[in-house]
């Protein structure tokens, strides 16, 4: 199967958008997963619900909310523009933001499960052997939770590759800037006589998503999460 240069560009843009999204959201997802797994506080249920919102909201509503918050006149959007000169509107960075928000709940779920599955008594053992809290985290907790953390990343990546509704609502459908794989497929479908292009792009989508899903399941199984506990 041979892709045209224009089609390669679409695939490359999709990978850039998703790769950036997952890398940028990773520390936030892990931090939230840690808080939900380990801390007790008032409003935990609310935080949990807000994180999961993108999973159940119509994506177009998520996109609209992003528009309000991260748009040029949105409070968060203005903050980013003023402090680090980062804007999201009609740019690939906005597509990455939409992808990150949509991937977040899946990542937090997988990582929270993997953190909860770490035997805290092992951390106690490490402390009595002379390891401080940070060393215990990096040498015991994180390595034991790592398969689940990677599974969460891969799962989030698969989700973000397929992101459509929030992206097109938030940053529109601009060739070379925000036209990722699903948007390109949608656009191509609007024109007659492009079945071959659609088929090729669709196959690429299937390969990327399926590959990521399989990797995430394998990792989850290896971490012991797989025994009756799926991340989905």
């Amino acid at each position, binding site marked *: 199967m041979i892709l045209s240069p224009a089609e390669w560009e679409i695939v490359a843009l999709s990978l850039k958008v998703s790769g950036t999204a997952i890398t940028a959201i990773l520390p936030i997802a892990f931090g939230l997963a840690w808080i939900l797994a380990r801390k007790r506080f008032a409003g935990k249920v609310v935080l949990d619900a807000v994180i999961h919102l993108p999973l159940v909201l119509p994506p177009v509503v998520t996109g609209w909310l992003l528009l309000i918050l991260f748009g040029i006149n949105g409070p968060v959007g203005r903050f980013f523009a003023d402090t680090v000169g980062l804007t999201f509107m009609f740019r690939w960075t906005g597509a990455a933001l939409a992808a990150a928000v949509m991937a977040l709940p899946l990542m937090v779920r997988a990582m929270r499960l993997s953190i909860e599955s770490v*035997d805290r*008594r092992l951390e*106690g*053992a490490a402390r009595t*052997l*002379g390891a401080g809290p940070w060393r215990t985290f990096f040498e015991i907790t994180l390595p*034991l939770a790592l398969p689940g953390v990677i599974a969460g990343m891969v799962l989030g990546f698969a989700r973000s590759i397929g992101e459509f509704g929030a992206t097109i609502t938030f940053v529109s459908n601009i060739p070379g800037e925000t036209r990722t794989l699903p948007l390109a497929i949608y656009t191509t479908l609007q024109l007659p006589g492009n079945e071959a292009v659609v088929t090729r792009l669709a196959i690429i989508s299937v390969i990327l998503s399926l590959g990521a899903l399989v990797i995430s399941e394998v990792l989850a199984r290896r971490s012991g999460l797989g025994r009756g506990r799926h991340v989905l």
Partner: protein
Amino acid sequence: MSFEIDILIHRGGRKISGDFKTPAGLTALFGPSGAGKTSLLDAIAGLLRPDRGRIAVGGMVLFDSEAGINLKPERRACGYVFQDSRLFPHRSVTDNLLFGWRLVPEERRWIVPDVAVEFLGIGHLLDRMPSTLSGGEAQRVAIGRALLSGPRFLLMDEPLSSLDAGRREEIMGVIERIRDELRLPILYVSHDRAEVERLADQIIPIHAK
């Protein structure tokens, strides 16, 4: 005096209290399951904060609620052997043994890895992963890991309870040698009378409240 304990712990509506002083050697805390013996050991190790009281071992104060002293677990130089060996599952036997050894300052080390491995007879296990060890093997590695961390005293929480008769005998021999040859103060928790009578220099009964 080895252990000087006078603490009160509230746990889930229960009160656990420990008030005793021990001479050198091995002291057994003896009592039924659920009497709070493990909580007492956890408090001495620093894994659980008592509500009030004082803990000193060998003259060093580890916890004193009135003086506001509460040493972190990693500062207590305590060798803790758990009921379940609690070996780190993602690390080899060697890496488990050396976990504490690598962290402890040189002047506090009093046994080198080769000697500990010889003493415990675990030379043939060094490259294995913990999941492949039998209960007795895992417990010997756990004892070695604790000894190599340069402890000033040992806490042992029913180290024989998960073992069959043959393995119990073997680990009991190891504990007797630690008591007699290494001369570490040991606090030993058990609910088995025969085990306690054989090992302990002093027995302190702990009752459920």
